[in-house]
């Protein structure tokens, strides 16, 4: 079976695209599927460090496209997960070194031998975004529950639909359940009502994500990380499993129960 190509994009920078790409790639590969992650952010290479593979880069995406190496030579094989591979971005070139057609050709070359291709898109709506989206079978839009990120997500949804890539799916990242409960952060329902697209993941804010990117060990590898679990759920949904969304607003622990008793009628 040919690989499905999933592109992770957002419009706004800094919402967690690269973290999502690394973790979804890791989660898919740890269930035994053959995965290639592609860093399409040419000139601002980052997926390699988040995945902990930065010391093993010899060739990159532009080298493949310009014929300086074979596809397999530029694929870095992850030592922890033998089914996980990375094609890094070039660091010294810019986005115009690759065209949307190049990306389609590359994806077609990868498809027969793998199950998933996960493409990390650069921020913005220019050439780099179009490169990343061109070969996609499915586009995931990452946003944060804040006004600017949701606004940019809306713009990207329009552009993805204009490229006839079908309806994209939404990942809401960095949700702080306590702030949502207080009414100081947009809830999942608020964001879905505004954007009107299908949800594929809700990822809670989790200090472990920074710790894991410090170490180059994506949180999806850590069974205790809440964000890691949310990314593993996204991978399962990509595989067609019906996974219920974790209720992030559920109060946990003794203090949560006390606080529920103290607050008349709970909170909206």
């Amino acid at each position: 079976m040919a690989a499905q190509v999933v592109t992770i994009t957002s419009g706004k920078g800094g919402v967690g695209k690269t973290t999502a790409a690394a973790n979804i790639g890791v989660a898919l590969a740890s269930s035994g599927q053959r995965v290639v992650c592609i860093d399409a952010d040419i000139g601002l290479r980052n997926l390699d460090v988040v995945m902990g593979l930065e010391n093993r880069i010899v060739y990159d995406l532009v080298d493949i496209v310009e014929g300086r190496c074979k596809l397999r030579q530029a694929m870095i094989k992850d030592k922890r997960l033998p089914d996980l591979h990375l094609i890094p971005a070039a660091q010294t070139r810019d986005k115009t070194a690759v065209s949307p057609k190049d990306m389609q050709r590359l994806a077609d070359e990868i498809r027969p031998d793998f199950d998933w291709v996960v493409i990390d898109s650069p921020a913005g709506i220019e050439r780099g975004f179009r490169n990343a989206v061109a070969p996609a079978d499915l586009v995931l839009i990452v946003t944060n529950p804040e006004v600017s990120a949701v606004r940019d997500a809306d713009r990207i949804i329009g552009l993805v639909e204009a490229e006839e890539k079908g309806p994209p799916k939404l990942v809401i990242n960095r949700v702080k359940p306590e702030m949502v409960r207080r009414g100081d952060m947009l809830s999942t329902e608020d964001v879905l009502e505004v954007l009107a697209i299908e949800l594929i993941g809700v990822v809670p804010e989790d200090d472990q994500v920074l710790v894991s990117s410090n170490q180059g060990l994506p949180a999806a590898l850590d069974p205790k990380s809440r964000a890691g679990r949310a990314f593993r759920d996204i991978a399962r949904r990509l595989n067609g499993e019906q996974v219920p969304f974790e209720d992030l607003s559920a109060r946990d622990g003794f203090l949560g129960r006390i606080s529920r008793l103290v607050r008349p009628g709970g909170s909206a």
Partner: protein
Amino acid sequence: MRLFDLLRGESHSARDAKERLQLVLVHDRADLPPAKLEALKDELIAVLSRHIEIDSRAVHISLTRDRGQQRLVADIPLASARARRRPIG
């Protein structure tokens, strides 16, 4: 509940966020920022006034979203009958 929220120092800024988002997205999606909409309104008043007497100060024009459909809604009250009977100029 409101007083209770006040005592707890709660602000419910998420509600503001959602309202502001919905408004800004209506304009983004139509590629019609508020200032451009205002210019459109002035031109519309000018055109309409050549054909019919309208109460230009009460004209209201807005963008709305109704079941996935973007709508430009214009409410254009005509000048009152009494005003119309008055000779112009």
